[in-house]
């Protein structure tokens, strides 16, 4: 069995994980603050296992400040629910946990392990819930912690935890948090002035799905002007059939002063629109600003180079960091996917724009690790 090609690939993947974990361990963790505590969140997602080491300042809950020290992931494709991908996921999870506890010396109580809602949804759909249970049991045995908590979160929990982790207490009941993912958009808010009741918001449109639908409509004409034209049609249809309804049904408009948007596209726009705010995990934007940015993506994309965007930053450290981050954004998103994601964001923002009252919009750069911050809060309160 061990000599089969599949097994060889599996062992190679495991070796790679362990090797990368070891390399990862060699790099030191330098906290940004003196009076802070370091936490680690390890999340088994649909496509892989992700570890985020974050530093939370003493005023985190009141100010919403947390700092990402390390962020890494291994692709294991757990939702294939096959023996090799199960083993790869288990080994990846164990390796990352061991790195956090042994190399970074982070106490077990400050390492949080969860199974994402995407995995749970797929397992429920395929009747494979037992694979999740087996993964958790195997992981507990491998790390020698029989009572280790590995929570399986659902969509509601994930959105709720993200809100609790990202949005500071001072804005808890006035902020509508929206996470634009690749395949869908989810989020919500607390409508009753307490954290017991969370109103979920869901939309079957994400950055990738919008881009894919546009590509499909482009047929043989793959030119940018045609993509732009078809994108406008896709977004108009999405707005009329789904977005308007979802926002109205959520009841968020009258209860929210702030609309915070997280997800990959929010990070990308925040970095490209305000490179000078490289240290800010949150960036404030206006509808007009994003609209202008959207036009630039189509008409003047070649001017959005990292060098041009960071030209006015005077602090050298900030400039270097902004340059690197803008380069990273442009590697993750190409012109068309940026156009699709920004277009979708604009359609959502538009539901909160009116001539009488406009909400304040925020882009959250590291929304994906917000849940760790929420876990910290829960742990402290226990």
């Amino acid at each position, binding site marked *: 069995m061990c000599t089969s090609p599949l097994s060889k690939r599996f062992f190679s993947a495991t070796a790679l994980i362990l090797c990368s974990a070891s390399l990862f361990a060699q790099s030191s963790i330098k906290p940004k603050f003196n009076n802070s505590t370091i936490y680690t969140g390890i999340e088994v997602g649909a496509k892989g296992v992700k570890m985020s080491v974050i530093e939370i300042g003493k*005023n985190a809950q009141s*100010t*919403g400040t947390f700092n990402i020290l390390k962020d890494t992931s291994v692709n294991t494709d757990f939702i294939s629910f096959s023996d090799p991908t199960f083993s790869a996921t288990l080994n990846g999870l164990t390796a990352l946990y061991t790195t956090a506890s042994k190399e970074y010396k982070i106490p077990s109580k400050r390492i949080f392990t969860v199974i994402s809602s995407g995995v749970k949804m797929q397992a429920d759909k395929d009747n494979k819930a037992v694979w999740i249970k087996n993964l958790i049991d195997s992981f507990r045995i491998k790390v020698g912690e029989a009572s280790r908590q590995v929570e399986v979160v659902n969509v509601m929990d994930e959105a709720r935890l993200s809100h609790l982790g990202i949005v500071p207490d*001072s804005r808890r009941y006035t902020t509508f948090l929206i996470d634009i993912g690749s395949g869908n958009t989810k989020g919500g808010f607390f409508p009753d002035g307490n954290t017991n009741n969370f109103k979920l918001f869901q939309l079957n449109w994400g950055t990738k799905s919008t881009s894919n639908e546009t590509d499909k409509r482009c047929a043989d004409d793959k030119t940018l002007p045609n993509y732009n034209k078809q994108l406008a049609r896709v977004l108009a249809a999405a707005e009329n059939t789904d977005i308007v309804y979802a926002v109205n049904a959520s009841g968020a408009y009258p209860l929210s002063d702030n609309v915070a948007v997280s997800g990959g596209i929010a990070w990308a726009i925040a970095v490209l629109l305000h490179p*000078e705010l490289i240290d*800010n995990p*949150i*960036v404030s934007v206006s509808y007009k600003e994003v609209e202008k940015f959207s036009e630039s993506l189509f008409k003047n994309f070649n001017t959005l180079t990292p060098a041009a965007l960071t030209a006015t*930053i005077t602090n050298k450290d900030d400039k270097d960091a902004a340059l690197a981050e803008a380069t990273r954004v442009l590697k993750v998103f190409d012109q068309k996917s940026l156009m699709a994601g920004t277009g979708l964001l604009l359609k959502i923002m538009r539901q909160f724009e009116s001539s009488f009252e406009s909400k304040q919009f925020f882009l959250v750069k590291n929304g994906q690790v917000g849940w760790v911050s929420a876990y910290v809060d829960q742990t402290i309160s226990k």
Partner: protein
Amino acid sequence: MLSVGLVATWVYHLYDKTQYSNRKTEVYIKDSVAVAEGIRDSLQKIYTYTINNLDTKLDSTKTSADSLKTQLNGKLSEIYKLKSEIDGILKNSGSSKADMEVARSKIAELQQLIEELKGQNTSMEEEKKQLNSVLSQLSGEITGLQQNMKKLGEENKALSDKINLASIFVASEVKLIPVAIKNDKEQETNQAKKVSKFVISFTVQNNVNDYSNADIYVVIIQPNGKVLKSDVWDAFSMQTFNGAKINYTRKVRLDYAKGEARHEIFSLNADDYEQGNYTVQIYHNGYLIGQSMKTLL
């Protein structure tokens, strides 16, 4: 004798008159065709000369008078019409003397028209020269006006800047006070390790404008050169007067009545307090209006 003489004189006179009258009629009848032909030849010469001369003039007129083409075309069609009529008369071998008179009159008319055209052409060329001269003059004036406008624009901008500067707040008493909290008592400290919060205070004033929503930006630069961000949901960037974007620590919005010395005070908690120099800068409308420094040991 006298009577006979008078009668004889009258008889001679009457005889002579008869003779004279008879001879005159004869001559007229005998020479009429030849005279007409002579006249035709003479007119033909005048006409040919006139037409030849006209063609040259017309060409130059055509090229030099584009702007008055319609008017010219009217005159030319009149000329061509006359030309055609004269041609018709002169080519008709049976033209009478009366016809010849008509032709003469038309040729005279044609000549007059051509003279008019010549005069018009000359005046058009002169007008063109004049217009060119006016145009040059106007161009010069426009350039002058543009320069003047540019100068006025610059002066206007300078004045606007002065007015803007005059309407900008002046900040005074800018302070950053590090505070230590011990047993619920607050005390100023210079020791970085003991600092629990910063208290920032300043006074702003201007004697020109009232403000319903004046944004004052407070920038606290830490010893490491970075701007302190105590609340990441309320600390972004602003544009300075020269277009640069700088990060700020806190935005203070205030309603203001001109002349008022407005004192602002707030505290903020940082995640960390470092040893070294903290600089507080106050900005309004993109201008630095006041600053101070505090050193933590």
